């Protein structure tokens, strides 16, 4: 109990108190309506709502057919297709943006050059929604393909025998059965999109007309210094309300619309034969997947090899020298170190929390993951930008000087991703066989030793997956880093962001290529790990 209380106190001090401070900085509920409805705030709010709604729509429109094809049809190469369409989540959204800028900027994108100038424009609301939607595709694909897989074929066959055509069966039986999962996937996309910073910044700020969103406005206000801070706080509260509101709505919808698929033995899943259309449908599916996933990534690599940005020509490695520049190396080093420490902390604190077996503590530790990164970072910034003075044991005073240090960044990485560590540990713990630990105790091991020898080996798979995933997200983190990075320093995300938006998109593409290679390699390692865990 004592340990649980200590962890809870730490979480409250580092997340919930700062949120309170932010709230206090944002005026009072009485002044909110006026502040929220100010033209600029309203503009940003509508940008966020529209682009997030659009992203959900894009993810549904692409995700649903893919999910159906890979689970319920004999589409060619279903496994490969599923791997491809679930890839985007692993790659930071601003990388997709860079790819799409290279492909579809109105003057010199690769696609633009094929199609003709001014026909394609990735800048603006549509582009933001499209890039966010495709980079969040896995949220819909995974949710709905799990639902498709839970539908027993006899439910559909019963409809056929009742007189419904195949199409009618799909619209009246299959679709309603997966609707809750689709909605919940779409809600997750919405929350992801509303919290996103890099995509709307790169595609919205220089659009014509500029398309602000809450996150990009908050960033803009923070750049203004003290004066902007309180306006940023107001926008943050709005963003928090939007994100948490959608999550609560989704939870309520999920409960109201829950469909319990009945038990009982049936034939299980029958795959639908596409028949004569198989070749056509498979080609279309693969072409679409390649266009929205392989093409933008390829464009990043190609851009890094272009002699001059935005121009065709013989490819060259001459820009690759940027990887070896001191500034780049330093950013890489800082990112690797921060991500590594954050990932290990997420794993170990998550395990500690799960081991207390207290639901309330798990909920408390889960909560920060629902807070948009911008809001969390701003809360930490507002709270810890000045030194915090603790007076303990009478006269000994501690000064906590976190502002403008990497500690604040590390803190934000850890609390934001803590849910990953908690959830995977508590899932693994609930599946672990306690008798192995008990057997160790009876063989003479102490409590700690019994845990290390008997239980921990059973958790290792899930825990290392969580650590790896945290590492991958943190190593390329942008949204929080951009607000919390100490002046004069860089992490990979902020460096890329700066190069891409102000200085040198060519060099940005090179670093992005290197980052992509690392992410893809890590994914290979992870899938090998998963396969080994499954084999056991």
């Amino acid at each position: 109990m004592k340990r649980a209380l200590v962890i809870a106190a730490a979480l409250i001090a580092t997340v919930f108190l700062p949120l309170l401070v932010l709230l206090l900085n944002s005026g009072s509920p009485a002044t909110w309506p006026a502040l929220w409805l100010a033209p600029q705030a309203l503009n940003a709010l509508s940008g966020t709502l529209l682009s997030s709604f659009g992203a959900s729509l894009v993810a549904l429109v692409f995700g649903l057919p893919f999910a159906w094809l890979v689970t319920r049809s004999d589409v060619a190469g279903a496994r490969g297709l599923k791997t491809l369409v679930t890839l985007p989540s692993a790659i930071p959204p601003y990388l997709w943006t860079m790819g799409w800028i290279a492909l579809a900027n109105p003057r010199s994108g690769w696609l633009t050059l094929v199609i003709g100038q001014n026909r394609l424009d990735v800048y603006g609301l549509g582009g933001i929604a499209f890039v966010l939607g495709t980079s969040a595709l896995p949220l819909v694909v995974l949710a709905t393909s799990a639902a498709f897989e839970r539908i027993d074929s006899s439910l559909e066959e019963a409809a056929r025998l009742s007189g419904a055509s195949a199409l009618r069966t799909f619209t009246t039986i299959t679709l309603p059965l997966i609707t809750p999962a689709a909605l919940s996937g779409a809600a997750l996309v919405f929350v992801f999109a509303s919290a996103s910073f890099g995509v709307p910044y790169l595609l919205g700020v220089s659009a014509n007309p500029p398309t602000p969103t809450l996150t990009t406005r908050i960033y803009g206000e923070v750049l203004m210094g003290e004066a902007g801070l309180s306006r940023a706080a107001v926008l943050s509260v709005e963003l928090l309300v939007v994100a948490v509101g959608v999550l609560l709505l989704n939870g309520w919808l999920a409960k109201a619309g829950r469909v319990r698929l009945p038990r009982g033995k049936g034939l299980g899943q029958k795959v639908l034969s596409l028949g004569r259309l198989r070749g056509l449908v498979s080609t279309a599916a693969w072409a679409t997947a390649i266009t929205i996933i392989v093409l933008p990534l390829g464009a990043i690599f190609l851009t890094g090899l272009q002699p001059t940005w935005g121009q065709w020509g013989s490819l060259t490695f001459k820009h690759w020298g940027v990887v070896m520049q001191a500034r780049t190396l330093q950013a890489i080093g800082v990112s690797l170190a921060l991500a590594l420490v954050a990932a290990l902390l997420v794993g170990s604190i998550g395990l500690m929390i799960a081991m207390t077996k207290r639901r309330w503590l798990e909920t408390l530790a889960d909560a920060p993951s629902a807070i948009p990164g911008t809001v969390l970072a701003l809360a930490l910034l507002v709270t810890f930008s000045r030194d915090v003075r603790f007076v303990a044991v009478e006269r000994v005073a501690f000064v906590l000087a976190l502002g403008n240090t990497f500690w604040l960044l590390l803190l934000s990485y850890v609390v934001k991703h803590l849910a990953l560590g908690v959830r995977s540990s508590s899932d693994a713990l609930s599946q672990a066989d306690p008798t192995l630990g008990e057997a160790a105790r009876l063989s003479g091991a102490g409590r700690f030793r019994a845990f290390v020898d008997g239980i921990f080996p059973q958790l290792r798979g899930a825990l290392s997956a969580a650590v790896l995933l945290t590492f991958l997200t943190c190593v390329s983190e942008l949204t929080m880093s951009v607000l919390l990075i100490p002046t004069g320093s860089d992490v990979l995300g902020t460096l890329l962001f700066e190069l891409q938006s102000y200085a040198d998109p060519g060099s940005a593409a090179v670093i992005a290529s290197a980052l992509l290679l690392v992410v893809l390699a890590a994914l290979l390692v992870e899938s090998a790990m998963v396969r080994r865990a499954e084999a056991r």
Partner: protein
Amino acid sequence: MAAVELHEIEKSFGSTAVVKRLSLEVKEHELLALLGPSGCGKTTTLRMIAGLERPDRGVIRLAGRLVDDGKEFVQPEQRGLGMVFQSYAVWPHKSVFENVAYPLQLRREQNVEAKVMEALGWVRLSALAQRRPHELSGGQLQRVALARALVGRPKVLLLDEPLSNLDVALREELRGEIASLRATLGTTMVLVTHDQGEALALADRVAVMNKGVIEQLAEPDVVYREPGTPFVAGFVGGANVLEGVVQDGRFIVEGQSFELPPRTAVTPGPVTVVVRTEDVAVGGTGPALTLQAKLFLGSTTEYRFALGQQVLRSTGPAIDGLKPAQAAAVSFRAVRLFAR
């Protein structure tokens, strides 16, 4: 005219033949049971009748109408059938009423409400019309499935192990309900089951299937009393099936020599002998066998004797003083002989 007619149907999954040159006619208003062990192809046969599976070869007709001959194919929804699935297949997003109304709505019928309530009355579910499926028990779900399959008054009702997911008491109850529904509605039914008790109790005729072929097709009492093959005898009657040879008028199996009852038609050579358990007599003049186990079954007691590597079972009244590991003389009162 036969309600269902299968002509030389063949079906393989990959390289395994599941149904082999199967022909079958189901008469109008008849309840025909397809009985056989797990994996013998019963469900596959039923699904081909429904149009949920295509045969590799052969012709299927429903009430004389060609529905599948490899080229012509009538979609399942156009065959006018009803079907009850082993897994119930009650749609979880629709209420009981909506489930049963669905077939009527598709056909834009009038008086949907009255018809649905009538069908729910058949299966005694009128009170639960507004319930959702997750609020129902297994037996109630199966009744919903039955009402939904019957509400459109199909010519033929296909039932795939409709009772096998239910506990014993419910099974008896629903079995009675299916029988009385058939009496009131007169629907032709094809019932797939691996439970011989169910098949014998409900069916007008029983088709005993084994490894994709029908071994015997006859009335229940014929199947039970005069099994056409050793497999049918073993599967339906639970009889002892012994492979041995006939020599000098005696039956030799596992090194033991049994006297054959008088009036048995004897042909020397390798034979399969089928002895019903109640025809195995303990005491008397046969070879002495060791008792392995004694099972009290209520009205009778089953004795299991070791016969080499095989087991010979005998049922009858309890015998005082006979205990496992003791030996007793065993003989046959009546047998059926099949040449091999």
